[in-house]
């Protein structure tokens, strides 16, 4: 099998401990790091994300695949940087102030990294200002907000308002998600997008980045 397909397949099969070795092998075969990323790691994580969305696999399977992906990414990152290959985009992500739930947010971070995005994960219980500060400081064009409680959802609006107040609207887009969060809520607070699950969040972020470019 083509070594890049082999990398993707190893992620799909949950053989996380094989991924780094296969990536090294691909580099020895003179595959371009960007090809290894796109046609190996990202292709594999796309399938994993889709299978999870359909619940053909479950959270533990995704976490294992992610471990393999990170091992591969660690090898590729310095090479991509040396070649000056830009990432798919830079996004700041976190669960909003008052919300300690982070399983869903972590999953979105995994899927975004697996899609080639540069992700700055601020963790859980993040105040509105820190999201916007971090986006400005690191030049992120997307802020991703997670809330699992109806009581913490209003913090999402604070972030949207702060992005506007700092004159960043249009340059920094806000995407929201979490079990109680809906498309209607996103519209109501003026967010740019809503991701209804991790795979959908990646699609929406891709669209936001493409629209902003």
């Amino acid at each position, binding site marked *: 099998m083509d070594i890049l397909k082999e990398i993707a397949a190893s992620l799909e099969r949950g053989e996380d401990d094989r991924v780094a070795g296969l990536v090294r092998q691909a580099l020895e075969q003179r595959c371009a790091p960007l090809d290894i990323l796109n046609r190996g790691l990202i292709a594999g994580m796309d399938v994993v994300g889709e299978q999870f969305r*359909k*619940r*053909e*696999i*479950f*959270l*533990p*399977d995704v*976490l*294992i695949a992610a471990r393999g992906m990170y091992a591969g990414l660690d090898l590729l990152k310095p090479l991509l940087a040396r070649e000056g290959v830009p990432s798919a985009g830079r996004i700041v992500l976190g669960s909003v*102030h*008052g*919300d*300690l739930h982070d*399983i869903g947010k972590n999953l979105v971070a995994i899927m975004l990294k697996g899609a080639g995005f540069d992700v700055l994960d601020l963790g859980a*219980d993040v105040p509105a200002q820190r999201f916007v500060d971090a986006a400005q400081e690191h030049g992120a064009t997307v802020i991703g907000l997670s809330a699992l*409680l*109806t*009581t*913490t*959802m209003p*913090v999402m609006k604070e972030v949207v308002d702060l992005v506007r107040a700092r004159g960043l609207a249009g340059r920094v887009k806000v995407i929201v998600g979490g*079990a*109680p969060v*809906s498309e*209607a*809520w996103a519209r*109501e607070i003026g967010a740019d997008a809503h991701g209804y699950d991790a795979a959908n969040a990646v699609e929406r972020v891709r669209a936001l980045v493409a629209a902003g470019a």
Partner: protein
Amino acid sequence: MRSLLERLAAGEVLIGDGAWGTLLMTRGLKPGEAPEVINLSRPEVLEEIAWLYLEAGADLVTTNSFGGSPARLRRYGLDAQTEAINRAAVEAVRRVAGGRAYVSASVGPSGHLLKPYGDGDPAEIGAGFERQIRALAEAGADLVCIETMIDLAEAVLAVRAARAVAPALPVMATMTFERTRRGFFTVMGASIEQAARELGEAGADIVGSNCGNGSAVMVEIAREFRAHTGRPMAIQPNAGLPEPRGGETVYPETPEFMAEQAKALVRAGVAIVGGCCGTTPEHVRALRAAVG
């Protein structure tokens, strides 16, 4: 009061209570604050909520200890107060409902995924559950209510902890399932069949489901549980999934709607019907009226 398990064995249907979090918020709990802090600072609020549910007709009243495991309290720097927080949760409900309703001692997930998927050490998480449940039992809880679990391994740790430190108390264990094309599973991949078997083997007296996508789906979940367990079943649904309405988020299922579903739940063999997120004393009143 007759024992809970005797009444269930006799085929009686009992009513649980509804959500606590939302009532705590309207009484001053701030976003970002551990809901269990109020157990020590303002226990009279717990008494008031317990009274609202008792008065609405609940046979079981839940304690405000869902996040009372030391692993979870540690996030707020409160783990040293595990015993005091859990004791206070039980004592407040007992003062109001003791002898009139069962004091159902809530135990929620630790908030950590177990190794190898997360950083949770099973021995440590299990010991934490034992510590929490010992405090709940010593304060006079009538049953241990392990709820909203998504990882069967963690749920089993909690059930075993209850069996170990509170062998005299009935144990109820409920998990949160979602519908997939292949049937109902938790997000961690546990099926209803696995849950029914493993929770039962670990020593749960009552099994079932709580939280989730609303009461209509729960009827299907209950039927599937019935196919895989002879134990009494408990079902405590959310009032649907929250929807935005005029700047607020509202849970869509009315007390009347939920009461209709409760009848179907009882027909499916459910012994304990209550509510989870978004349910109120009005929902409990409607459940009581529907189920009798």
